[in-house]
């Protein structure tokens, strides 16, 4: 009984924590972007403008929830839910601190890949169901981008798996007790970072949205809370990729003096800020550049990294 209660508490905590973080990120991103553009950003609602997401939520809930008459209604309504569900499911396997995880799957890493691939459906279906050219183009881009970057996102982590000898995320964190994988797997880390950017469709890889080309890409036709769900889904994705970056390459909860959870949250937060900095600093790529960069540069690099890591791992044994 006690265990069940603790487990339910953890599930509630993870759910509440991630969703709060995701909506809080809207505020954080606007403030940080403003800071780097010598502005203030939202600083009126509550202390430091912290209640801005709350005000936005109230606003977006009272907006007209319009479904275009030419859309495929069922899929149109379903699509925003898919992204939230898949990203939240991925948090299932993230070990936040010793003992604080929802499930310690022995195929945790594969589970994450499965879920993030499923997440692509959300964008494709949204683009398709909207029945509009811009949305479809956005959906197509999302499909192509996710498919190609998923390949070496997976391969870039194989080095980590090889060094650990396990797909379990808890085991990966524990294997970094002496040396974080960002040192021994530096190329893998860089490639995972780039692929993670592409996976979350963040600038400079936000081709599926591409405001200046495709109106708003796959969510052009969405309004009200359905659009809000895409928005929250994107920020959940950022949180997830940042958390996984910490798990795979920066020693998870490990660190001196402070409690493990604080270390984990702190590192994740740092990566989230990094994501926002990338948005503030870099322009969007052209779509063919993105594809060429992926297949011609990153894939060979990943394979090379995999080969070298494999050879070293073999030599050690």
């Amino acid at each position, binding site marked *: 009984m006690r265990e069940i209660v603790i487990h339910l508490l953890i599930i509630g905590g993870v759910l509440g924590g991630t969703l709060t973080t995701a909506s809080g990120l809207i505020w954080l991103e606007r403030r940080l972007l403003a*800071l*780097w*553009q*010598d*502005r*203030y950003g939202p600083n009126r609602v509550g202390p430091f403008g912290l209640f801005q997401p709350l005000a936005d939520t109230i606003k977006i809930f009272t907006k007209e929830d319009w479904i275009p008459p030419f859309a495929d209604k069922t899929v149109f309504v379903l699509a925003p839910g898919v992204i939230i569900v898949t990203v939240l499911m991925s948090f299932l396997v993230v070990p936040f601190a010793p003992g604080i995880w929802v499930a310690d799957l022995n195929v945790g890493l594969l589970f994450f890949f499965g879920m993030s691939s499923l997440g692509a459906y959300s964008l494709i279906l949204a683009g398709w169901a909207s029945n509009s050219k811009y949305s479809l183009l956005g959906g197509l881009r999302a499909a192509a981008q996710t498919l190609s970057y998923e390949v070496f996102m997976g391969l870039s982590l194989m080095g980590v798996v090889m060094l650990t000898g396990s797909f379990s995320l808890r085991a990966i964190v524990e294997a970094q007790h002496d040396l974080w994988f960002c040192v021994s797997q530096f190329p893998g880390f860089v490639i995972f970072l780039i692929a993670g950017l592409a996976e979350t469709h963040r600038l400079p890889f936000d081709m599926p949205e591409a405001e200046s080309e495709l109106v708003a890409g796959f969510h052009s036709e969405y309004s009200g809370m359905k659009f809000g769900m895409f928005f929250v889904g994107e920020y959940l994705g950022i949180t997830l990729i940042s958390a996984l970056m910490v798990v795979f390459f920066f020693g998870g909860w490990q660190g001196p003096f402070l409690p493990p959870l604080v270390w984990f949250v702190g590192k994740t937060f740092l990566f989230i800020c990094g994501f926002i*900095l*990338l948005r*503030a*600093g*870099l322009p969007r790529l052209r779509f063919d550049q993105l594809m060429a960069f992926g297949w011609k540069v990153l894939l060979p690099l990943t394979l090379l990294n995999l080969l070298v890591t494999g050879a070293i791992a073999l030599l050690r044994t």
Partner: protein
Amino acid sequence: MLSALRSLWTVLRHTFRLRVTVQYPEKSVYLAPRYRGRIILSRDPDGQERCVACYLCAGVCPVDCISLQATEDESGRRYPEFFRINFSRCIFCGFCEEACPTCAIQLTPDIEMGEYKRTGLVYEKDDLLIDGPGKYQDYNFYRVAGVAIAGKDKGEAENEAPPEDVKTLLP
């Protein structure tokens, strides 16, 4: 790749820059004295209305937001019976100020004139008239003009010679 890192570094350095935003309701931005904001009607240094109701401002106004009615007091001094500016139409072009021959109508550096009702934006003479001379401290139209009014006959204005007697032949 290197240029991308460099631009990231440049952006990051902006963390410690001063922010350019002026936090408006608490601090207000500096508006130059010649800023074209709320329109006022000024008085001459003697404290009397400068406006002589010549209709030039109403004529030049491109959006026709000024309306007035001229009248005269018993001494022959012209003044507007009413003077009305519809600020919901005004585009603050400043043509009225340029057209005004007596420096009566002036634009001021005040922009805080928001209203909840449109009718509140129609300013009557009471709302427009100020107690001072505005931007031109010493100018008094009737003191330099040749018009005769109470207390100043023809030829008594500043820099004005007494009128020539056209009926005499003496030099």
